[in-house]
């Protein structure tokens, strides 16, 4: 299973890196996200606040890449006829889907880099990481957690051909609920419990703490715990939706 996972990660990353459409999107999106974040904070914001906004934009990228990019990737699997082959494989579907999600989130790494570089050169946001080791750990744990959160949504993609649009619809509510666009302080209190259940909240906190000087390890720990929880939820969801898809004949496009 580990081999199938690792091989899947490599294959799906290579697929993404060979797609001109994805590469162009990846170049343009971070610039738009970082620019919006910069103008939301304002030009007179503190350097720390601006870097924090840049990191928020990077996590937005990761989430978008997972929820929209992976939906697109799974839709492509259906169109190119490989979805049926993955379902018919002896390895559990969760082991085959997780690399697609995580590869999409990893692609968001590229977005993180572009966001930070754009922020530095276009807006003069300082690019200084207080604890590089913790920053790397926060990045890794965010990728895994956000990827596996996407896998729960992806289980519906197996059943519904139009589930791709569900991913598009889920982009913005998560940006807001996780404090990626505006600070939690301006959000209603009832959103707090929802944000605690979402990986981007803790991913951003970990990255922010590691970059600006703080203790990111509890946030990294929560990311890893959430990853395990997401996986435990995603496995039966995938199993159930696969069974429904076999009943309703929705694995194939035509």
């Amino acid at each position, binding site marked *: 299973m580990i081999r199938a996972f690792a091989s*899947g990660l490599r294959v799906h990353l290579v697929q993404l890196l060979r797609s001109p459409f994805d590469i162009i999107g990846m170049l343009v999106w971070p610039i738009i996200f970082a620019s919006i974040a910069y103008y939301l904070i304002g030009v007179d914001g503190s350097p720390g606040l601006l870097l924090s906004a840049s990191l928020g934009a990077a996590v937005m990228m990761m989430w978008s890449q997972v929820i929209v990019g992976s939906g697109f990737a799974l839709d492509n699997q259906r169109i*190119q006829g490989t979805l049926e082959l993955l379902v018919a494989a002896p*390895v559990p579907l969760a082991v085959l889907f997780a690399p697609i999600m995580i590869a999409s989130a990893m692609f968001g790494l590229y977005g993180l880099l572009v966001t930070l570089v754009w922020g530095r050169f276009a807006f003069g946001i300082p690019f200084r990481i207080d604890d590089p080791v913790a920053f790397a750990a926060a990045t890794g744990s965010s990728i895994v957690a956000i990827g596996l959160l996407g896998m729960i949504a992806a289980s519906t993609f197996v059943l519904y051909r139009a589930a791709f649009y569900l991913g598009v619809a889920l982009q913005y509510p998560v940006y807001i609920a996780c404090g990626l666009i505006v600070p939690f302080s301006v959000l209603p209190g009832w959103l707090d419990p929802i944000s605690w259940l979402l990986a981007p909240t803790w991913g951003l906190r970990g990255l922010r703490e590691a970059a600006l000087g703080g203790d990111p390890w509890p946030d990294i720990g929560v990311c890893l715990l959430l990853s395990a929880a997401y996986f435990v939820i995603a496995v039966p969801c995938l199993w159930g939706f696969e069974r429904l898809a076999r009943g309703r004949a929705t694995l194939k496009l035509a």
Partner: protein
Amino acid sequence: MAAIEVDGVSRTFRSRPGLFKRRTIEVEALRDVSFSIEAGELFGLLGPNGAGKTTTIKILTTLLLPTSGSARVLGFDPASQPTKVRPLIGYVFGGDRGLYDRLSGLDNLGYFADVYRVPVRSKAARIDELLELVGLRGRERERVETYSRGMKQRLHIARGLLHDPPVLFLDEPTIGLDPVGARELRETVATLRDAGKTILLTTHYMFEADALCGRVAVIAGGRIVAQGTPSLLKAGIADRTVIEVEAYGVDDAALDRIRALEGVSAVTVEARDQAQAILVQSRLGAQLIQPLLNLLDGVSVSSVTAREPTLEDAYVELVGRE
């Protein structure tokens, strides 16, 4: 024990088009289908488009649940025991889908070898052996998107064989291939049959089934209308002669007149470049030629031949009854 058993399987597809006043449309794709395939046998499932061939294969390969009835693959139920069935089967479908186009052939095989649990020690040797078998050695590092349809089809076969499954499902594997590519693929299938694999092959090329299959079943409108050896099916119309008339500009009215002719049991038309080949089945033999030509008065006829029926003629007769 049979390697594959299908017992009274039916499958109904339901769809609800529209947004308001939605109505349910039901299509009975399979109706009480039963057959069995012995271990090491190459069994052909023949039928026109939409007859239910692919639906049958999808049920047996665990991708679709039957509405009723049951099936067994090497003793396991594909509906309720998919994890037992999946390691034992290989599934190859026709066309150029089912591959990662931006990856090389080698990368595709490498990935599917991991997905289908090919032991890591034998993975490279197995891929090499299969590249040799399907004639893709030397091209394996090129991206699949640069492959011809025939090459993609051969890569499919290699993918389906990676884990050396005892049972293979080949769903119209030669569809869309050029004659040389199709012949090479048939040779590969014959090699697999000789190696003792149990194979279910679907096709609508009768000569393919005649050349490869020990037994065949003809499916039409979701029902099995006949099954047995190709010779047995041909024997069903052995008392008939097929008169083949090659002509130009035969209209529907003329065809209807031929169909109404006494002693004619089936009429089909094939396009051959600018000409039409009218195939007329009859028990009257060569006596029918003159009445036929009388009906085609005014039509340009280039040749008329009488021959013994083939499996294709038997198929036309069986499918035509549905």
